[in-house]
């Protein structure tokens, strides 16, 4: 195992490269930038209590971590400082609501017709201006709720018995908002003689809570998830994710935030779904009975994938499908960054950050967008006139299953 740099602000050599890559600093001067807010002020925070409201402007997109030559966990220092800030300062109502995504999703998808009512209700409250009252932006592209959760849908899929099994961590978005991504995954993996397991005891990875400054609450989730993940990894079962943020939290941030020993037991078994399929392709194990699709897709790389250090597997794999041309949008951060794009005080910044991606997609001659990250896809569809799908959608389509 490669020895990585510890959680230490003095790793930072103040080179300022992170400032040049920070999409928020580009969009607004209300944010001091990653280096000063993160490592530089963390050194001071070790001496005195900090009451810095500028902390709310970090979107935790991790572009600073990506470009840092010293391996400083800049964004995590920011999130830790934000959490400490909220021990002395009240949370906004929006933060309380948005960080409760799991409870809302679970409740709404478990009651018949509740999602229809909730989605309609969201439209009405938005129209009535009630979003702004609680501090949420009515302009941001909110996700809609699914009729049935992924775990409910999963139970009705009859999978073939296979020797090879993987565990899927769906995350809240696939579970409650877009279960189709999970369904596509099961079919694509089954087609390649791999059985997909899920575990009903998983809880939210905690990403929205980290962004909202509730790190203490996340420790509970981290304990539950890491124990389950480690128990599968011990049996030699690989773990698959489709959400790049969940993956990052499970693989890396549980370790950075809570130094959980279990993380090292399972993170070597974790794979993004497309990364896993590309590895199979490169070993000659992936079925390539693809139909010709005749379409052009524009691919956006999520920031949370870029920072994981394994390139862009989607770009490579989808281009292997006959008749599919995938171009790289290369247009920076989508801006939404979890709950950041939905809170009134930062939604404006998120909109500026995401405008380059929206413009690139709108002006592209591609038929549709493609991206691993659920929230990025919402921005890709926001006023661009194009749909955006998870790459598994295209792969399943190519298999004709």
């Amino acid at each position, binding site marked *: 195992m490669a020895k*990585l740099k510890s959680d230490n602000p003095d790793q930072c050599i103040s080179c300022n*490269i992170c400032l040049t890559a920070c999409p928020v600093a580009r969009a607004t*001067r209300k944010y001091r930038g990653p280096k000063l807010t993160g490592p530089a002020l963390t050194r001071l925070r070790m001496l005195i209590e900090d009451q810095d409201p500028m902390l709310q402007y970090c979107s935790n997109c991790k572009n600073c971590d990506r470009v840092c030559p010293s391996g400083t966990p800049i964004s995590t220092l920011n999130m830790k400082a934000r959490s400490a800030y909220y021990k002395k300062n009240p949370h906004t109502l929006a933060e309380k609501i948005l960080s409760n995504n799991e409870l809302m999703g679970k409740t709404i998808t478990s009651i018949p017709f509740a999602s229809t009512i909730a989605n309609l209700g969201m439209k009405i409250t938005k129209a009535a201006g009630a979003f702004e009252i609680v501090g949420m932006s009515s302009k941001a592209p909110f996700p809609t709720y699914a009729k049935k959760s992924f775990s409910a849908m999963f139970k009705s899929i009859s999978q073939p018995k296979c020797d090879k099994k993987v565990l899927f961590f769906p995350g809240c978005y696939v579970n409650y908002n877009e279960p189709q991504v999970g369904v596509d995954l099961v079919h694509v993996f089954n087609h390649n003689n791999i059985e997909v397991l899920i575990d009903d005891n998983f809880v939210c990875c905690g990403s929205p809570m980290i962004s909202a400054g509730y790190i203490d609450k996340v420790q509970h989730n981290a304990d539950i998830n890491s124990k389950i993940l480690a128990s599968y990894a011990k049996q030699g079962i690989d773990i698959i994710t489709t959400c790049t943020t969940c993956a990052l939290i499970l693989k890396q941030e549980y370790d950075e935030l809570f130094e959980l020993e279990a993380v090292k037991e399972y993170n070597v078994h974790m794979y993004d779904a497309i990364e896993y399929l590309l590895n199979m392709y490169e070993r000659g194990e992936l079925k390539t009975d693809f139909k010709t699709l005749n379409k052009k897709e524009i691919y956006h790389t999520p920031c949370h994938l870029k920072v*994981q*250090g394994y*390139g862009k597997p989607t770009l490579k794999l989808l281009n292997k499908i006959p008749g599919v041309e995938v171009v790289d949008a290369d247009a920076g951060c989508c801006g939404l960054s979890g709950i950041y794009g939905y809170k009134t005080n930062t939604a404006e910044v998120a909109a500026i950050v995401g405008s380059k991606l929206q413009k690139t997609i709108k002006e592209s001659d591609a038929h549709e967008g493609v991206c691993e990250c659920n929230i990025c896809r919402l921005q890709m569809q926001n006023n661009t006139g194009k749909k955006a799908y998870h790459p598994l959608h295209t792969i399943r389509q190519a298999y004709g299953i």
Partner: protein
Amino acid sequence: MSKSDVVVIGGGISGLFAACLAAKKKKSVTLLSYGQGALAVAGGIIDIFGYDQDGNMVKDPLEHIKTLALPHPYAKIGVDHVKEAVDAFLNLCKESNYPYLGNIRENQLVPTAIGGFKPSCLTPMSIDTNLFKKCTKLVVVDFDLLKDFYAQLIAEGFSKTCPNKQISTITVKLPYETGPHFRDVSALDVARLLEDDVSILNVIEQLKSKASADTLFIFPPVIGETPNNRVLNKLKQALCGNVIEVSAIPPSVTGYRTDAMLVKIAKTLGVEIIEKANVFSCVKEGTHCKKVLTQNYSHVYEYEADEFILATGGIFGGGTVAQMSRMFEPIFNIEIDVPKDNQQWSYQYLFTGKPQPFATYGINTDESLRPIDSNNQLLYDNVRVVGRALGGYDFCYEKSGNGVAICSAYHAIAQI
């Protein structure tokens, strides 16, 4: 596992340039970088050779390179490849619509952020040193609220270095919001603002009354964010063509543009760039490297190739590691020959015009830049070392850093 013709490790100027050259030769190239290269916050000018061993300014870098002996990297690269490397760099920039000025036979005097001059060889169009020779009046342009740029200091410096010129300063005001809830204004902020057509007109409006055929406007490094000279051309058009930038402390936008240009060229040529790739080891058979390994908070990734370019930098960039009595390169595990007594590594008096011994420490190589041990035995037959990881030169004292970077990259790729 990914397989390519060439794997380049390191995304600074030497790694990016090597990757572009290899891709131009129709090789499949994977570039592994951990963090962005220092070029993005550096000055972006290309020093080839500035000062000789006695500290005298070199007039003709190429002539001086001819006099260098081994183990200096230039002596291994050879005069022909140095010339070709510089031409290749100039051509690449030109093709990318961001041409560089200068030639290998002449050092230019580049103005500095304290009103002095330093020798350098190739500069972007925004640092056209001929304008300095031509103009008799200098106007140092400051921007209200811009930090880390001291127009008065620069003006005072030039009043000493250019006693025959008429020197003044002017402060441009931009509509920045102020207060405790706003970040200080950096050169990069101004550069981004000047990309906006209305803002640049605002700047021109405040300067144009001073413009004349022999008045040179000396700007902080704010002349546009993108490497296309669009902002420069607009300013030149409005200010009688007399506009020049000086570099300032990071984030210095001049290097940021050059970095953006090289990354763009690499992507266009089909180089696969893997960011945040923490290369920690390699797999070899005898002296042949089969693949390098990366790992962050996950499983190990393998990158197989026929040829490897090591462009990870020196101690500062993490390419070499210094410990008590020892220095080594961590990926290929190459020991670097250094004095056992660490006290001998440095010269105790700083700023006395003397070179520091540690500055020349780096990987020893054969003439084709492949690493060798202290008995001159070849360690790897398909690994070539480029840029600051090389030993045998003092980029700081000589002012030869980016020059060795591009020339060693060219020499390495010429052989594969």
